[in-house]
C-alpha cells in the first residue's frame, strides 16, 4: 500500500515554523507517513536534522498568509504562499492531504479554489471533533465554513457529517441532531424548520438538539450553519475557560482550600486534558476534492502530529469519495 504523503503548511500558525516542523518530524517517526514541509526553504531547512530523515522533503514557497490577512483576497494575491502551495500539491497529486495551522479562512479558500468542490456539494463545511467526557467524541458541522446556509445545505452538512462520523468515530449509524432552540420539530427559525423536514428522511436523524447537548452523549453529530456553529463553538470555549477560572480561584480562597488544592488540582489538570485542543486532531474541511485538515492557531508539535494522523485516516478511508457518493446517493 502506498505511503500517505501529507503537505504541511510550515509557515502557518502562531508557533510556526518551529512547532510545525517538530510535529511533522514526529509524524514521520510515529505514524510512518511522508511529509512535505511547505514554506520558506531558508527558514524550514535549518530546523531539520542533517541529513533530513527519510520521508521528509521541503517545498519552497515564498509567501506567507498572516493570521489577520483577509483570507480570500490573500489566497488570490499570494499564489506562492505556503498554504496555497499545500492545496496545489494535493490537487497535482504530489501530496495526498494537507494540514495547516494558519489562517483558517485561507486554508479553506485555498482548498476550495485549488482542489475544487466535490461534485454535487453546494458548499463545504468544517467538521470539528468535540470531547465528550467518558464517551466517544461528538462532531459539530459546520463550525464556520459556510455562513448563509439554506435548508439544502444543512441537509448536505448532515450527510457529510454522517460519513465523517462513520470514519472518525467508527460508528455504523451515527445519531444526528439539528441544532435549534427546542427539541420539537416546529421549534426554530424557518431555516431550521425546513431543514428538519428534509432531515427527517435521513437515517440516524434524531431530531432537534439544543446548545446544552454540546459535548454530551445524546447525539454523535450536531448539524448547523457555519455562523451558528462558530458562535456555539466559541461560546463553549469561553464557558469552559470561565468555569476553570472559578474552580481554580476557589483553591486560592483560604489556607484550607489551598491545602485541598494541592491534592485536587493535579487530578483536575489531568481531567482537563479531555478538553486539550492539541489532542483533537484538528478540524476537517468536508466537501472539497481532497483532504484538508485545519489545526488550531496555537498548535504545538503534538497538535500537528494528531492533525497529520487525522489526515492520514481520511486519506485511507477516502473521505472525499465517500462524501461524493453520499451526496450523489441522496439525489
Amino acid at each position, binding site marked *: 500500500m502506498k505511503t500517505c504523503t501529507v503537505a504541511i503548511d510550515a509557515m502557518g500558525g502562531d508557533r510556526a515554523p518551529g512547532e510545525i516542523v517538530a510535529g511533522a518530524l514526529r509524524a514521520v517517526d510515529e505514524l510512518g507517513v511522508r511529509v512535505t514541509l511547505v514554506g520558506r526553504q531558508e527558514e524550514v531547512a535549518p530546523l531539520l536534522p542533517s541529513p533530513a530523515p527519510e520521508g521528509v522533503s521541503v517545498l519552497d514557497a515564498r509567501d506567507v498568509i498572516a493570521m489577520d490577512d483577509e483570507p480570500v483576497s490573500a489566497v488570490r*494575491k499570494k499564489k506562492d504562499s505556503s498554504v496555497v502551495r499545500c492545496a496545489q500539491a494535493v490537487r497535482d497529486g504530489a501530496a495526498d492531504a494537507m494540514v495547516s495551522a494558519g489562517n483558517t479562512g485561507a486554508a479553506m479558500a485555498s482548498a476550495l*479554489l485549488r482542489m475544487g468542490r466535490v461534485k454535487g*456539494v453546494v458548499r463545504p463545511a468544517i467538521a470539528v471533533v468535540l470531547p465528550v467526557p467518558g464517551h466517544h467524541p461528538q462532531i459539530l458541522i459546520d463550525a464556520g465554513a459556510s455562513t448563509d446556509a439554506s435548508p439544502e445545505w444543512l441537509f448536505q452538512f448532515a450527510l457529510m457529517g454522517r460519513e465523517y462520523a462513520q470514519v472518525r468515530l467508527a460508528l455504523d449509524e451515527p445519531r444526528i441532531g439539528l441544532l435549534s432552540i427546542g427539541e420539537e420539530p416546529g421549534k426554530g427559525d424557518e431555516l431550521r424548520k425546513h431543514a428538519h423536514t428534509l432531515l427527517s428522511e435521513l437515517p440516524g436523524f434524531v431530531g432537534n438538539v439544543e446548545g446544552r447537548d454540546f459535548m454530551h452523549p445524546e447525539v454523535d453529530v450536531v448539524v448547523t450553519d457555519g455562523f451558528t456553529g462558530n458562535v456555539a463553538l466559541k461560546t463553549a470555549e469561553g464557558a469552559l475557560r470561565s468555569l476553570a477560572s472559578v474552580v481554580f480561584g476557589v483553591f486560592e480562597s483560604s489556607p484550607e482550600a489551598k491545602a485541598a488544592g494541592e491534592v485536587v488540582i493535579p487530578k483536575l489538570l489531568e481531567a482537563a486534558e479531555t478538553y486539550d485542543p492539541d489532542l483533537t486532531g484538528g478540524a476537517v474541511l468536508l466537501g472539497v476534492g481532497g483532504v484538508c485538515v485545519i489545526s488550531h492557531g496555537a498548535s504545538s508539535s503534538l497538535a500537528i502530529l494528531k492533525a497529520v494522523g487525522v489526515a492520514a485516516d481520511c486519506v485511507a478511508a477516502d473521505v472525499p469519495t465517500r462524501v461524493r457518493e453520499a451526496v450523489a446517493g441522496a439525489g
Partner: protein
Amino acid sequence: MPAETHLERGPLGPDDVLAIIREQLSEILEIDDSRVVREARFSEDLAADSLALIELVEVLEQELGERTVGFSVDDEDLADLKTVGDAVDYVVSRLDAGKMSA
C-alpha cells in the same frame, strides 16, 4: 466550452461570455443553468456568496486568460457586480481592454 473552441470562433461577444458564465456558475452553485440570466442577482436570486463568486472568477481567469493574455479580475471590482449582466459587461470590457493593450 473549452478555450480552444473560443479561439476558433473569433472575438467573444456578450452572448458568448454569458454562455460561459452560465455554464460555470450553474456548476459552482449546483443549480439549473436556466436560472443564470442577465437579470439574476447573485445574492438574492442565486444565493451566490463571495466564495462562490471567487470560484467563478478563478475559472474565468483560467479559461479566458488563454484567450486574452493577462486577463484578470480585480477583487475590488467584485463588490460592484450585483447581477449576472454586470459580470458579463465587466468581463467583456476587460477582454476589450486586454485586446487594446496587446
